[in-house]
């Protein structure tokens, strides 16, 4: 197998991609995708984002060290207007 350049991002083959669930919808991302990259790819404003990772609320300080795995379930939540 040809050595893959680690700087190149690819989601083209099944071995290099995983399926996760974001807000109840299945989504394919690259293997070992860090959470900040997912947030960026989704175009979300990170400042006010709240992440529940496999049922557990995660603090913002933890975002950078979180790497996504096959079958992960994420809820991405944010504050909205409410009474």
């Amino acid at each position, binding site marked *: 197998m040809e050595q893959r350049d680690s700087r190149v991002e690819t989601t083209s083959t099944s071995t290099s991609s995983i399926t996760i669930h974001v807000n109840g919808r299945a989504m394919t991302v690259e293997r070992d995708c860090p959470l900040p990259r997912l947030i960026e790819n989704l175009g979300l404003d990170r*400042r*006010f984002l709240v992440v*529940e990772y496999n049922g557990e609320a995660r603090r913002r300080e933890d975002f950078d060290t979180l790497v996504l795995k096959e079958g992960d379930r994420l*809820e991405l939540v944010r504050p*909205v207007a409410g*009474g």
Partner: protein
Amino acid sequence: MDPALRIGDREFHSRLIVGTGKFPSGESMRSAIESSGTEIVTVALRRVDAQAQGDDILDFIDTERVLLLPNTSGAQNAEEALRLARLARAAGMPSWVKLEVTPDLRYLLPDPVETLRACELLVADGFTVLPYMPADPVLAKRLEEAGAATVMPLGSPIGSNQGLRTEASLEIIIEQATVPVVVDAGIGAPSHAARAMEMGADAVLVNTAIAVAGDPAAMAAAFAQAVRAGRSAWEAGLAPERREAEASSPLTGFLEATEG
């Protein structure tokens, strides 16, 4: 001088809490918050929709000046309320929560059993809990015993603007409470807010009546005045109500009747 309102470990000088829902724009919400003088505003938590992000509400709230109070709206039971509260805390909001468990979508009435259970779970998890509740004096005592920081009985259903339909029960709750009583929901006019404060409520929470007013900032200012007036009246001690007249003018020293 009116002493400060103490909730949990904090002191507030405004007795008007403002909800952020239903404002026509972020700017109108910002100016209404400012003219209300409020020090606590509520927000909800919802899933992000990458397609429809829009303005971020927190861009319009000066969190240096007001405390963000996340609510658990949408929770149908105690576990869902706990889950939402934990998300808000993880987001860096203070560990304060306006507990709302309203499984019935038509009247949005709080579920007393799940609200009490959620209060116990949240207090055990270190939250300062402000529960929205039916105007039931027994439940108010039970929530107090469970460690609630306030009780927030409803005046009438959320967003209904019907005012204090529960007045008789609110009187008993206020009489018996050892934590602040915040009348929440249904307050549709400044007179309703003033009435709640005259009865001895410690604060009121208003959202719809301000947000959907013709001029939200002006209405927020009107509510602020009403809350202050009602509070001052309560502090001053209202004159008792009587069934019969009691003359304000002397009943002696009348002029003699003139001869026809």
